[in-house]
């Protein structure tokens, strides 16, 4: 759309009023990019002998496994997410309404938690295989059973909890697609599935890309699942280099390469759709859903049901069974404090992320030049970086700043300030902003892409200021995307562990921290209650917000 706006003839007025916006954009992205730049700066330091060791031994493994993991999760989330979106947005069958929110449920499930529960069920020593052996008198090696703790297992786990990103964004895209175009396709005699592949999917490309890239970035940043499954990925390699070899610089350098890789992917994708436009020009018109009958309807119900069963019902039930042991003594004042901490932290971070995302997305749309686009792209790399590394990237410059302030204050005013920002909740919220900004930004961006630039231009030509265009035109149209972004970040922060672990203040715990501590001690039964609480709190906004997201266009059905 940059092309549209630049060729529109409003260029000069944009330029003058855009200067202020662009300056702010630059300041905001610069602050958010600091942790990433700290990591990139490690590339300026000498490469230690640890690199030689990594080259000689494990680096190939790390890279291969991570690429396979990405490919697997990419395909998995694409297939699951797009099918779910197509079924609930374009088709009509009994149970569709229930499925359209139930598809979101797995999002509330942290990936490492689903990994624990499936291992509990499917492992060699788990109830299923034990029952099989007891029934058929088998021994180890007598039968084939897929090993859950493997690369394939990790792909399944991550796909099951990450497909909702694709589902959410693609569903909105499908719903907002021009009914006229889809009807034209049908009237030309194309079968529904042909319409899907020839028209609907290509038109939904920005949403698909946004959803899948979120899923892939999360995959690259995942440590808990792959570490538990014994898969040596690039990320486990980063931590092994840091914790094991004690080489923080080499670990940061590895991470910098990971970020360069992600940056290249983002740029390649952007370049490939540079001249394409995805907004439509026809008026909104109520769309008629394709009514599924007979076996088609049965298939839709069972496929949809299976996805929800595997991604949510089964693991949640397992958690509930574990949590039912001794929950009475675990629900106490301390537990409610955890609930409060987790909830308020997630809510604050979600609102901050949303505000920044709206500002960046809109400024980008209205005024950005190539340089600012690059700055925003760097600022949104955080999601692909493991939380612990982000935390270090935040910790080092902020502690430095704190110490400088303390030094100056002590020398000038003889008043030591100590550490002002380090170890506060404010720092934690900033770290979440760095890490999860792209979740909100991608969502808001893909919503904005669907709005015609000519709307902006008409409003501007009638004398509306950019902020008025944003508040009176874009935000109301974007309501769905905004709520979606809010929800996504809320749930992300709720599940977040590594950043919280390092940066939190004294005596401050969250549900995720408690879950992790118990689970890392292999006390899954005790970890189940806080884990279940994460899932349940994550469900609240899913239920609240989906009501408004889902009823957008078919409200009077």
């Amino acid at each position, binding site marked *: 759309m940059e092309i549209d706006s630049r060729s529109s003839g409003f260029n000069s007025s944009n330029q003058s009023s855009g200067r202020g916006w662009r300056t702010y954009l630059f300041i905001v992205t610069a602050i958010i990019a600091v942790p990433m730049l700290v990591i990139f700066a490690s590339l300026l330091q000498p490469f230690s002998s640890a690199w030689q*060791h990594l080259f*000689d031994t*494990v680096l190939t493994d790390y890279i291969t496994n991570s690429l396979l993991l990405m490919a697997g999760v990419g395909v998995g989330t694409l297939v699951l997410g797009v099918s779910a979106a197509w079924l609930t947005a374009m088709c009509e069958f009994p149970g569709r309404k229930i499925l359209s929110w139930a598809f979101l449920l797995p999002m509330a499930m942290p990936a490492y938690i689903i990994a624990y529960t499936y291992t509990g069920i499917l*492992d*060699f*020593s788990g109830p299923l*295989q034990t029952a099989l*052996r007891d029934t058929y008198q088998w*021994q*180890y090696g007598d039968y084939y059973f897929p*090993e859950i*703790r493997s690369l394939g297992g990790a792909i399944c786990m991550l796909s099951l909890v990450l497909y909702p990103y694709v589902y959410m964004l693609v569903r909105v895209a499908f719903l907002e697609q021009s009914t006229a175009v889809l009807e034209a396709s049908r009237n030309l005699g194309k079968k529904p599935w042909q319409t899907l592949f020839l028209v609907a999917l290509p038109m939904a490309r920005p949403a698909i890309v946004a959803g899948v890239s979120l899923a892939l970035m999360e995959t690259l940043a995942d440590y808990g699942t792959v*570490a*538990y499954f*014994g898969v*040596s990925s690039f990320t*486990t390699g980063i*931590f092994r280099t*840091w*914790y*094991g*070899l*004690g080489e*923080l610089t080499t670990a940061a350098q590895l991470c910098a390469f990971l970020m360069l890789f992600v940056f290249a992917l983002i740029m390649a994708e952007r370049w490939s759709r540079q001249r394409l436009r995805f907004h439509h020009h026809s008026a909104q018109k109520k769309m008629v859903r394709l009514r599924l009958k007979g076996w088609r309807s049965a298939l839709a119900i069972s496929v949809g049901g299976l996805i929800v069963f595997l991604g949510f019902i089964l693991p949640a039930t397992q958690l509930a069974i574990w949590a039912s*042991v001794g929950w009475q003594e675990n629900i106490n004042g301390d537990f409610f404090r955890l609930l*409060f901490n987790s*909830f*308020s932290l997630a809510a*604050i971070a979600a609102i901050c992320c949303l505000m920044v995302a709206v500002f960046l997305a809109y400024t980008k749309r209205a005024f950005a030049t190539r340089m600012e686009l690059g700055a925003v792209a760097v600022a949104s790399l955080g999601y692909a970086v493991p939380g*612990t590394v982000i*935390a270090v990237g935040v*910790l*080092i410059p902020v*502690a430095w700043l*704190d*110490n400088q302030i*303390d030094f100056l204050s002590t020398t000038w005013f003889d008043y030591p300030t*100590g*550490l002002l920002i*380090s*170890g*506060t*909740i404010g720092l934690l919220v900033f770290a979440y902003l760095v890490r999860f900004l792209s979740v909100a930004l991608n969502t808001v961006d893909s919503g904005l892409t669907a709005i015609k630039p000519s709307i902006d231009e008409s409003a501007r030509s009638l004398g509306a200021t950019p902020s008025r265009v944003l508040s009176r035109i874009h935000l109301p149209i974007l309501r769905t995307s905004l709520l979606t972004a809010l929800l996504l970040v809320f749930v992300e922060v709720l599940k977040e562990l590594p950043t919280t*672990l*390092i*940066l*939190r*203040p*004294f*005596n*401050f715990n969250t549900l995720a*921290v408690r879950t992790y*501590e*118990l689970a*890392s*001690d*292999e*006390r899954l*039964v005790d970890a189940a209650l806080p884990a279940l609480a994460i899932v349940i709190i994550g469900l609240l906004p899913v239920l609240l*917000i989906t009501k408004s997201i889902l009823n957008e266009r078919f409200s009077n059905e």
Partner: protein
Amino acid sequence: MAIFTPSARSFLSAALLVITPLYSAASDEVNIYSARQESLIKPLLERFTEQTGAKVNLVTGKGDALLTRLKSEGMNSPADVLLTVDAGRLYRAQEANVLQAIKSDELNSLIPGHLRSSDNQWYGLSVRARVIVYAKDRVQASQLSTYEALADPEWRGKICVRSSSNIYNQSLVAGMIASQGMMKTEGWLKGFVGNFARPPAGGDRDQIKAVASGQCDIAVVNSYYLGGMILSEDQAQQTAASKVALFWPNQKDRGTHVNISGAGITKSAKNVQLAEQLIVFLAANGSQEWYAERNNEFPVREAVAVSSVLESWGPFVADKLNVSELGRNNSAAIMAMDRAGWK
């Protein structure tokens, strides 16, 4: 945003939290960065508060992450005490120059020389032993002797052990490098890794369960996990634990490999005296008994009474190697494990 009105009050109070640092440097408070998880340290800290009236503030996390936080915060760090669950991280803290020497005759008399740093920068507070666990129905104790013997071909496809990313596997190998040298250790690793029943995955309890259910015959694990399973409320874990037995390796030579959880006082400590008082408290008999009772860890001295589970495993000879060596050889151990293909 009408959905948020009911909780507007919680937002407000949470927003206040954002701008208020939660710690202070009051004279009767001590601040801890702890790699030991909350449930395994907080009850002791509460006891300390009861006895002394001093408030204890706690942040838990991974050792290296806490150390990075401590390093970047520098002399203004609020932390008084660094607590870790292995000697390697304390050694690293010592190398990073963030700890100070403690001059305490009391601590020196409570904690044996090989479980603390030579310059008194840190002290071991509990002992964790890495043992062999075997299937009672398939393995005789007489077949077992040392870690070294686990590389023998008779164990091909019969051993379960977790990933080499686990610190206790690293320290086991680091200890072997210190006592046997790199050459011998590399040879051993080759045979040992060749004997794995499956690619390493899961934690120590998972290895014990795998032995119990017949996927492998022996596993190398930390003893407190077996203790935890024996005392578990979960029936499945109890059953699994009942099918295996514990073997103390290397009783006739250097002794069973042990690591420690331990603590040091930071250079930035505002309250050195109280910090020292806390470490003495953690080394005293009451706390030592608690480690055994609560987490089946061994006390740092022999005179302390241990729990019935530890009692049932009998006395054992522990490796007397100074645990600093585990830290010194940690990265060499990782590299050797990488070369041997131990995932």
